[in-house]
């Protein structure tokens, strides 16, 4: 038997310091549950999930019926989050940088969300970050991308990736691994269930009511689905995973299983004839799971029928996996992801009949200026993407009319779905486009003044760069194809290559339009011909 020391080993801390592997955690406040995933990583390689916890809390029931989160639901959330805090302490996961707490539609749409977030922070110390649909789509894409690359049947296919959540259904349409459409539908299993409850429909009517509602909501999807060629439906989410398991199709975390639609349909018919209590007893489900199972599966089946596919692909991937992987490289946007954003923005640009050749050229010039100025502005790739998208869409407003078109561009961008941009990014893109002409931000511009200071600086600087790029592309004939930029003393010196017919026009334009740039960077701008 070992001797029992009376006090802990004093070298424990130093030992721990040697541990190369550290814990990370993500907590997700969903519509019907609060889930936590704790992972471990050495900071470089893949995060391995070591614990997953789930507790039922019906935030969505409150929000989708009362529009606000009730006090006792808040108390329940706090109780769960406190227990999760204890679990994190047990795992020595206490570094706030390594813990991300996010909330989805049930919190985002609650009228008292600010009070809720404050209460949670006061009681638990957790800063809850409501994430919007675009962020979820971005994370989902990032998480699913390795699967798209790995699975031969998806590599070249047109795939509709769908996750039926409690409050919304996220849809990504992919051609190979490229996103061609991204949208979040206000069609969630819990929301649907709550809506139907208001009709007081008999059980035998609920399925047809649900189907009608699902079909009407997904009608718009028909507009973007290619009419020809076969499609794959890749379904994410705990309900469809559960169905696959019951149908004896085991799924490992990152694998894919093919569920025959007929089997899934039969299962849905079977479970839709059962009461919630029967479902709980038969399948050992929690109330929240039992309530949302049928609406979620019906949505999946109706979508599969719309796509005319005879099977559904199901994967074990979930949002928390993506959040954990994302924490390793906060703000890291890969080239591929940047490309997807641009692709999605170009889809929007096409819809508004933007001169894409021209706007791509503007974007390329703006990108060169942006990169040259990185030592000055220290902005990251996210800002570069915002500038890129703004450059592509700055003339979208011309679709309405030329008078004050920059204002049209602003609201058209605000109301467009661009994959990969969250609501803040979206606003920044619209404002950069808004300020690409003569007007400068004013105190009366509400959307601008509501931004925090950092975001206001970003808008000013990016709009300044966009104006410089526009000046260089003033002829619209791509006279200046290539530039070099250097910062010399208090000036940005732009050297244009390959021009022998003078730069007078562009220099004049620059002089007139560099004021915002000068305000943003405190630098003058000079355009010269390259000495080469």
């Amino acid at each position: 038997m070992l001797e029992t020391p009376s006090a802990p080993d004093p070298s424990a801390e130093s030992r721990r310091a040697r541990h190369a592997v550290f814990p990370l955690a993500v907590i997700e406040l969903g519509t019907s549950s609060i889930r936590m995933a704790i992972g471990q990583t050495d900071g470089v390689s893949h995060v391995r999930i070591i614990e997953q916890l789930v507790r039922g809390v019906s935030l969505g029931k409150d929000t989708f019926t009362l529009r606000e989160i009730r006090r006792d639901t808040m108390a329940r959330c706090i109780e769960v989050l406190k227990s999760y805090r204890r679990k994190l302490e047990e795992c020595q996961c206490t570094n706030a940088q390594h813990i991300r707490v996010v909330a989805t539609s049930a919190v985002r749409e609650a009228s008292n969300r600010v009070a809720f977030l404050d209460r949670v922070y006061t009681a638990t110390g957790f800063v809850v970050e409501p994430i919007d649909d675009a962020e979820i789509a971005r994370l989902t894409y990032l998480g699913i991308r390795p699967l798209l690359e790995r699975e031969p049947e998806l590599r070249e296919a047109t795939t509709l990736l769908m996750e039926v959540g409690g409050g919304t259904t996220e849809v990504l349409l992919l051609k190979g691994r490229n996103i061609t459409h991204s949208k979040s539908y206000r069609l969630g299993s819990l929301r649907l269930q709550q809506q139907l409850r208001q009709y007081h429909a008999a059980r035998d009517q609920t399925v047809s009511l649900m189907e009608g509602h699902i079909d009407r909501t997904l009608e718009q999807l028909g507009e973007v689905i290619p009419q020809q060629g076969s499609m794959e439906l890749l379904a994410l989410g705990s309900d469809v995973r559960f169905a696959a398991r019951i149908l004896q199709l085991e799924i490992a975390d990152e694998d894919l299983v093919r569920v025959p639609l007929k089997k899934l349909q039969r299962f849905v018919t079977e479970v839709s004839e059962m009461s919630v209590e029967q479902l709980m007893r038969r399948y050992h489900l929690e109330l929240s799971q039992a309530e949302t199972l049928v609406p979620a599966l019906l949505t999946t089946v109706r979508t599969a029928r719309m796509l005319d596919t005879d099977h559904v692909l199901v994967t074990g991937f979930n949002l928390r996996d993506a959040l954990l992987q994302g924490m390793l490289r906060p703000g890291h946007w890969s080239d591929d992801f940047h490309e997807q954003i641009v692709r999605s923005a170009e889809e929007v640009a096409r819809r508004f009949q933007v001169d894409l050749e021209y706007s791509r050229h503007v974007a390329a010039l703006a990108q060169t200026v942006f990169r040259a100025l990185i030592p000055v502005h220290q902005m990251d790739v996210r800002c570069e993407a915002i500038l890129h998208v703004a450059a592509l869409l700055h003339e979208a407003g011309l679709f309405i009319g030329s008078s004050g078109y920059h204002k049209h561009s602003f609201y058209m961008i605000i109301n467009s779905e661009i994959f990969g941009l969250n609501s803040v990014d979206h606003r920044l893109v619209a404002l950069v486009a808004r300020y690409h002409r003569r007007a400068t931000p004013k105190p009366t511009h509400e959307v601008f003044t509501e931004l925090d200071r950092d975001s206001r600086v970003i808008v000013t600087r990016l709009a300044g760069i966009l104006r410089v790029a526009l000046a260089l592309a003033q002829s619209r004939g791509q006279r200046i194809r290539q530039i070099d930029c250097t910062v010399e003393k208090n000036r940005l010196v732009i050297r244009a290559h390959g021009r022998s017919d003078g730069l007078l026009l562009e220099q004049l334009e620059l002089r007139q339009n560099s004021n915002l740039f000068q305000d943003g960077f405190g630098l003058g701008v000079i355009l010269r011909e390259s000495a080469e």
Partner: protein
Amino acid sequence: MDPSAYFNRELSWLEFNQRVLDEAADPAVPLLERLRFLAITASNLDEFFMVRVGSLRTCVRRGDSGVDPSGMTVIEQLDAVSVRVHRMVEDSYRLYLDELDPQLRQIGIRRRHMTELTQTQQDFVEQLVEEKIRAVLSPIAVHDPDHFPLLMGRTINVAVQLAPRDGDEDYRYAIIPLGQSDLRFITLPSATGHEFILGEDVIAMTVQRFFPGEEIISTVPFRMTRNADLTVREDDGADLLAEMEDVLDERKDSFCVRLEISDRATMPMLAFLKKLFKLMSRDVYVVHGPTGLGDLARLADLAGHDQHLYPRWTPCAPAGIDPVTPIFDAIREADRLLFHPYESYSSVVRLLEEAAVDADVLAIKQTLYRTSRNSPIIAALKTAAENGKNVTAVVELKARFDEARNIEWAKQLELAGVQVIYGVRGLKTHAKACLVVRRETDGYRRYCHFGTGNYNEVTARFYTDISYLTCKEQLGDDLVAWFNAVTGFSLLQQFELLNSAPIGLREKLLELIQFETERCKGGLEGQITAKLNSLVDPGIIDALYQASQAGVKIRLNVRGICCLKPGLRGISENIEVVSVIDRFLEHARIFHFMHAGANLVWISSADLMPRNLDRRIELLVPVVDDECRRRVIRILNTCMQDTVKARTITPTGLYTQPKPSKKDGLRSQIEFQRQAREAEDNASESSRRMFVPQFPT
């Protein structure tokens, strides 16, 4: 399924107890071990009456009119139990009085009656009566059955019948309870061996001193048994600890289920006691000899009689686990499978003791159902908590007959800073699992111990159980999730490898049985071998019947209750059931499914009874390491090959020896001892050849 396809569970249990009694009757067994088996038979019956008969009587009180799977009503079961137990009790006393007691006398262990005492012994008893017995014991007059004083169950009492008062017709009665005093076995001064007298004999001879001036008609010792089948109310917000303490109080005065009384009792005395305890004739056991044969176990432990016991067995050091290197290293190197008591339980204790003082250990989680009086495991958990580890103990307060002890530990652990969970509401946490979370240079590593027996290093010396030590990631993930569910941190989630009752374990077993059935239906081979303590669940039995009908070869080693009838034509011809009763209590639960050659092996805390599958938290754990898996299969096969202590069940419920006993017949427990000793010898031989230099640190 037709009721005739099942044995009644109570009668099946009684047949198990008969097999224990058969060990007591076996002349090949050493004398004091025979006495111990006799005592075990009696104390087993005590528990049977407290729990099972108590439960049946409760059903009668509730007016339960249902039938059990074998088609018997509750009353029919009570009657059948009474008939069977009466026969067993008669057999027990015949064995004791005709065989064991005379042989005990021969080896110097002699019970004396008052009339046989030497002068020295008489003086000794006289002194004892005056100084102790009269001071400690008090007669209680009994007038009215409705105001009957509290008598403890399973203790010896002496009933005294007094003559009626003048002018009255009715006898008067008094009771002298021995209670839990140490006056049952009184050791007498003797120069030749161990001589003793029973306390009730002394009281009977000196009873007049308790009732001076009264005419005593008769004195007779008796012993009664109370119902202990009481359940705790687990309402929302209720304090389970307080509720359990209430249950313990209730048990002291719950209704009587049995009266054992000496055949010296007069008819009026017997009638009075039956009325007093509200018993029917079937509940009364008139015995020719001392009541409470279970108490004789203390004689089996008398010093100086080793030649009349089984040779002392010291558990061997398990191969591959070096006592001087950290246990974590050994588990990291390979999964370890231990077979107790052939291999020492100390490795399991070491896991906790080392975890308690290891700077890299973050958390320990542990289930506790029954453990020993001075448990080193409890001590290690306390040390760990005091050292700042996050320690969680799931203490099952509802572990029958260990409730008081568990309440005490729970309080002690809480004081030391352990987070104590009193099991799960509405369910008993019977699973045996321990989890140590350690932060190592390459990440968090979870060390798991899964067992088939309790965390009790004392019973691990005479219960056969399996321990499985592993740090495999998937098992660690599952055990973390399981503890998170049991401790309320999370809802129960889908496991990768583990299966837990009441959600999933039954389904998994049925799925595994079904797989073998389908294989055989397809003309392929299917085979199931299992070792367990009880097989009662009709759902599982039916699945086994179907498997048998499909051609699956099923071999079962069921120590205790078996409601499955093997060898029934058209139903269970392919099922063979044997039972082993030997020196060590067979306790491991192991399942082996051929599974198309994959040879899946599982260990479990659960027996196949509805209570385990539906009302308890249990674990079914796959043995995933190849070497460990092969070893478990070898263990199972050896158990099935026993020809000395195994008995085969016939379709009529008789237990017969599988083959005529031969001198070289296989006795599995001896074979396991031999294997363990051989492995230990081989390991120590190789360590003698390998010198490990000690370097300065």
